[in-house]
C-alpha cells in the first residue's frame, strides 16, 4: 500500500461526508465554468480584434450616420491599407422577434478586411459581387433557418422602409460564410449596400461605420488623427479608434458584468472554501490518534503534511473536474439560444486550465491548516487524546 492508497482510503472512510464535499466543490466549479465561459464569450470581440483594424464612426455616437463620400477620402489616407463600410439594417425574419444581425456592406472590400475571420469560397464571393440582390449568410444563421444557396428569403427591417412603402427586401442567398476560428460568430447576414441604398426611402448616401486596416499597427495613431482631423468642423465629425478599444467600450455599456461575475464566483468560492475547510479540519481532528500511530511507525512530519494536503487536493479535483465538464455541457446546450448576446459561449482550454489551478489552490488552502496541525502533533498528545 503506497501513500496514495492511504490518501484515497482516508478520504472515502466517511463516504457520505466525502460525497457531500465533492458535490459542493462540483457546484462551485460548475458556476465558475459557466460564468467564465459566458464572460469570455461576452468579451470575445475584444480578444478577437485585429491589432491593425480600426473603426471610424460618427463622433456624436456610432448610431449616427456619415456621408458615403467619406469612404473615398479615407481610402486615400496614407497608412490605410484597405477600408470598407457597413450599415446597420435592423433585420428580422418573418417576425420581429426573430432578430437577425443584418448589415448592408460594401461588397468588394468587406471580405478582404475580415479575411482572417470570415471564409467565403471564392466562386461564391464572385457570385455575391455580381448579383446586386444577393446575400452572404453566416453558417450558424443558415443552419438555424435551414437556408441553402439559391434560397430566396424575405428580410424585414425594423428601421428602414422601401421607397415603394414596404419594409421587406427579397434576397437570394449565394454564399455561406464560415468562421475561421471558433470564436467567430457566424450569425450574420450581409447584403449589398448599393442595392440597399437605392431602394431605401430615407438616409440616402449615408453609411453607418467604416472599418479600416492600417499598413501596420504602429501607424494606428497617426491614421486615426489624420482621419478625424480631416472631418473636423464638418457636419459629421468622426471618431476613429482601434477595434479593440471600440469593442471594449461597447461591452462596458452593458454594465459592469466582470464585477458581477467576480462577485458571484467569489461568493460561491468563499462558501465552498469554508464548508470544505471546516470539514477537513473536523476529519483530521477525528483522526488525531491515527496520526499519532503513523508517527510512531516512523512517518515523518513532512510526509504526513503531504498526505493530508494530498487528500484535500484530491477532493478538490474529484469535485472540480466533473464540475467543469458539466459547465462545458451547459455551455454547449445554451450556445444557440444565447448566440445573439454571447456568441461562442464555451468552456475553453484556458478556462479549464484556470479551473485546474483554482482546484489545486482550493485543495491547498483548505488542507493547509489541518495538515500543519497534523504535522506538528506530538505523539504523546495524539495517543493521549480521545
Amino acid at each position, binding site marked *: 500500500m503506497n501513500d496514495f492508497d492511504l490518501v484515497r482510503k482516508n478520504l472515502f472512510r466517511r463516504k*457520505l*461526508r466525502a460525497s*457531500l*464535499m465533492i*458535490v*459542493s466543490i462540483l*457546484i*462551485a466549479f*460548475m*458556476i465558475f465554468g459557466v460564468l467564465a465561459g459566458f464572460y469570455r464569450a461576452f468579451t470575445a470581440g475584444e480578444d478577437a480584434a485585429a491589432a491593425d483594424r480600426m473603426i471610424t464612426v*460618427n*463622433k*456624436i*455616437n456610432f*448610431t*449616427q450616420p456619415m456621408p458615403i463620400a467619406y469612404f473615398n477620402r479615407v481610402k486615400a489616407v496614407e497608412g490605410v491599407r484597405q477600408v470598407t463600410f457597413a450599415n446597420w439594417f*435592423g433585420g*428580422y425574419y418573418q417576425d*420581429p422577434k426573430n432578430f437577425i444581425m443584418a448589415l448592408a456592406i460594401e461588397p468588394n472590400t468587406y471580405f478582404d478586411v475580415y479575411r482572417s475571420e470570415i471564409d467565403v469560397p471564392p466562386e461564391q464571393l464572385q457570385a455575391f459581387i455580381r448579383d446586386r440582390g444577393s446575400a452572404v449568410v453566416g453558417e450558424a444563421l443558415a443552419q438555424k433557418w435551414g437556408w441553402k444557396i439559391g434560397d430566396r428569403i424575405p428580410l*424585414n427591417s*425594423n*428601421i428602414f*422602409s422601401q421607397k415603394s412603402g414596404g*419594409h421587406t427586401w427579397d434576397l437570394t442567398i449565394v454564399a455561406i460564410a464560415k468562421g475561421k476560428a471558433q470564436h467567430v460568430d457566424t450569425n450574420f447576414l450581409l447584403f449589398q449596400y448599393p442595392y440597399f441604398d437605392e431602394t431605401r426611402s*430615407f438616409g440616402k448616401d449615408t453609411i453607418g461605420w467604416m472599418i479600416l486596416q492600417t499598413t501596420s499597427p504602429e501607424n494606428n495613431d497617426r491614421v486615426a488623427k489624420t482621419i478625424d482631423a480631416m472631418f473636423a*468642423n*464638418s*457636419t*459629421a*465629425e468622426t471618431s476613429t479608434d482601434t477595434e479593440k478599444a471600440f469593442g*471594449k*467600450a461597447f461591452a*462596458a*455599456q*452593458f*454594465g*459592469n458584468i466582470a464585477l458581477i461575475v467576480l*462577485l*458571484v464566483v467569489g*461568493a*460561491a468560492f*468563499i*462558501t*465552498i472554501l*469554508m*464548508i470544505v*475547510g*471546516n*470539514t477537513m*479540519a*473536523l476529519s483530521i481532528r477525528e483522526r488525531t490518534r491515527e496520526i499519532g500511530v503513523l508517527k510512531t511507525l516512523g512517518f515523518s512530519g513532512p510526509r504526513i503534511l503531504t498526505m493530508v494536503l494530498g487528500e484535500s487536493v484530491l477532493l478538490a479535483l474529484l469535485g472540480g473536474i466533473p464540475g467543469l465538464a458539466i459547465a462545458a455541457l451547459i455551455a454547449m446546450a445554451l450556445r444557440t439560444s444565447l448566440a445573439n448576446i454571447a456568441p461562442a459561449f464555451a468552456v475553453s482550454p484556458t478556462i479549464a486550465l484556470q479551473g485546474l489551478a483554482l482546484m489545486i489552490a482550493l485543495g491547498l488552502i483548505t488542507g493547509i491548516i489541518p495538515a500543519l496541525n497534523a504535522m506538528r502533533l506530538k505523539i504523546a498528545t495524539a495517543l493521549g487524546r*480521545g
Partner: protein
Amino acid sequence: MRSLWLQVAAVTAINLKSISQRRWLSLSTVIAIALVVIVLLAFLAMANGFQRTIAGSGADDIAIVLRAGSQAEINSTVSRDQVRLIEDGPGIARGSDGKPLISPELYLVVDGIKRTTKTKANLPLRGIGEQGSELRKDVRITAGRMFSRGSNEVVVGKALLREFEGLDLGSTVSFGATRWTVVGVFEAGGSVFESEIWADLSVVQSLFNRNNIVQTVRARLTGPAALNELKSYSDNDPRLKLDVKSEASYFAEQASQTSDLIQKLGWPLAIAMALGAVAGALNTMYSSVAARATEIATLRAIGFGGFPAFVGTLAESLLLAVIGGLLGAAATYLIFDGVTASTLGGNFTQVVFDFKLSPWLIAEGVALALIVGLIGGLFPALRAARLPIVEGLYAN
C-alpha cells in the same frame, strides 16, 4: 400527548444550547447560507429596480405611436404627413385652445462619459414637441429652467446627471459640430425619462438632418378606453400602418426583456449555490448528530422517543438557516439597496436605475434559506431519530 411535546421542547432546547460547542461548523453553515441569499437578492434587487424604473414610466392614458414592427423608439420612423393624420385622429384629448395634446418626438443616441469608468456610453437625446413635458407625469424642473423653443438648449434628467459627467447645469456639451447649453435639470418621478436629455424637436431635426421625420408620436387620450379608437383608426388608414400602444404597455414590454434576463441569471445561480450550501448544512448537521450520539442514545434509553430527537435536530438546522437568511438579507440591504447602476435598455441607450430590495424579495431570500435548512436538517434528523440505542451509547 402533552409529555411528547415536553420531550420535544426539552430535546430542542438541548440541541440549540449545544450549538456553541460546534460554533465554527455552525458559523460556516450560517455564512454559507447568507452568501447564497446575498447572491440571489442582489440579482433580484437589480431586476426589480430596473423593472420599477421602466415600468413606472408609462401611463395608461398616453398613446405612443411607432412604425409597425419597430418595437423600440430608436428603430421607428414616422413621417410628417403621418403626424398630421394622427393629430386629427379620434380619442385624442385637446387643450383649452382646442389644439390636440400630442408631441412628435425624435429619439437620437449621443455619447456620454460615465463617471465611474470614464468610458463612452450611449445616451438618449430626445427632441420633444411643445406639449412634450406635459405628456409625462410629474415632470418638474429642479434647477435652472426649461429650454426655450428654437434654441440650442437642453435640459437633462436627474439620474443622467448623477451617472455621467460634463452635463452639469450651465455647461456646454457638443454633439458633433454643434454646441448645446445645459439650462435645466428635471425630475420625472424616478421614471426612465430621468435618464434622458431633452431639447426642442425642430432644433434637433435640423441639426441632425432629420427634417420632416420623427420617430414617435405621443398623444394624451381622452381616457384609457380611447386607445382602441385610435388603434382602429390607424389600422384602417393605409397611409398610417403604425403601431399604436399605450405608453404603459410599451414600457412593460421594454422592461420585461432585460429584467427577465437578470432573473434568469440570478435564480439558477442561487439554486446552484444553494445546493452547495445544502451539502454544507448536511455536513454540519450530520456532525451535530454524531457529536451528540451518546446524548441522544442516553435520552432514548431513559424513555425519550425518536420524534423529539428528530424535531430537535431539524430545529437546529432551521434556526441556522433563518439566521443565515436574515444575515444575508441584511447584508444585501446594506451593500446593494439604493446602489445606482446603468445598463443598455431596449432603446440601445443607457437606463439609470437603483437596486431596490422589497419585503417580498426578502421573503423569497429567507424562503430559499429555509429550504436549504430543511433539506440540510431532514436526513440528519432522521438518522438521529433512528439511532440504535446500544450503538449510540458506545459511540465514543
